[in-house]
């Protein structure tokens, strides 16, 4: 349990006690102190609790554990543990190129204005489809994967910019930056999750499972 969550639960417990007193003896609000107490317990504390609760839920929804808790996402979670580092997602996850506890969110959020909000709204829809709809056999991205999401971290890094593969005649840094050449579908880093080929693949076991 995080400190923030513990503080939130403490606030809720404290406000709950005052609410029980108010429900049992509403007369206490006749005094000025009672009115202030009622305002704090009936308006300020619930406002803070709802804000804190929403923040805690949104923060939790960024975790790898949360994303892979749906049955449809389990293979994607497994693909992070594939031993073969040709698997792009696995190489990032196992080498701490993305935070392991926020692995999905790090790569699948648009690094653009309202990208996070859009991700959250899509996430709400995904939860609804998972529980109350029918999950498609093959899951596709809404849009082709944008190089911007890769370059958010890689742009400016020495190993990326000095890589011979990124400075060739066929592929240049400018092409990658402009999106003219895709990082993931131009034949360079096209093995990303490959969830349909996971059967029998050797897994890296020393990492904590998401």
């Amino acid at each position, binding site marked *: 349990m995080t400190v923030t969550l513990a503080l939130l*639960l403490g606030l*809720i417990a404290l*406000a709950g006690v005052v*609410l029980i007193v*108010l429900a049992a003896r509403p007369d206490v*609000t006749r005094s000025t102190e009672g009115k202030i107490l009622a305002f704090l317990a009936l308006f300020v504390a619930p406002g803070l609790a709802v804000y804190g609760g*929403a923040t805690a*839920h949104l923060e939790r*929804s960024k975790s790898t554990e949360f994303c892979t808790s749906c049955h449809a996402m389990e293979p994607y979670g497994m693909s992070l543990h594939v031993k073969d580092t040709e698997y792009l997602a696995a190489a990032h996850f196992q080498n701490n190129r993305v935070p392991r506890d926020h692995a999905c969110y790090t790569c699948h959020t648009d690094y653009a204005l309202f990208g996070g909000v859009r991700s959250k709204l899509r996430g709400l829809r995904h939860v609804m489809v998972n529980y109350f709809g029918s999950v498609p056999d093959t899951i596709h991205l809404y849009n082709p994967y944008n190089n911007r999401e890769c370059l958010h971290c890689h742009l400016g890094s020495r190993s990326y910019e000095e890589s011979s593969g990124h400075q060739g005649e066929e592929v240049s840094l400018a092409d990658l930056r402009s999106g003219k050449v895709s990082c993931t579908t131009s034949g360079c880093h096209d093995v990303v999750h490959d969830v349909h080929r996971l059967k029998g693949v050797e897994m890296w076991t020393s990492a904590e499972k998401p």
Partner: protein
Amino acid sequence: MSATAASPMNRAIRRSALLLLGAFVIEVFSLLWKSPLAFFLFLGIGGLLALLGMVSYLLSLVSSEATRP
């Protein structure tokens, strides 16, 4: 129950307090429940109860001010 305790203002405070207690119980449950559905529970039921409780309390304040001689 005394006449004072049954006054409209007291009833409104009791109603708000009970609604908010319900909201808090649901919020605590949703925070401890590790399921993607917890957010829907939190927002759909807990948030609604909290909103109703807060609005009910604010309306009671406004109406008590309006009826004051």
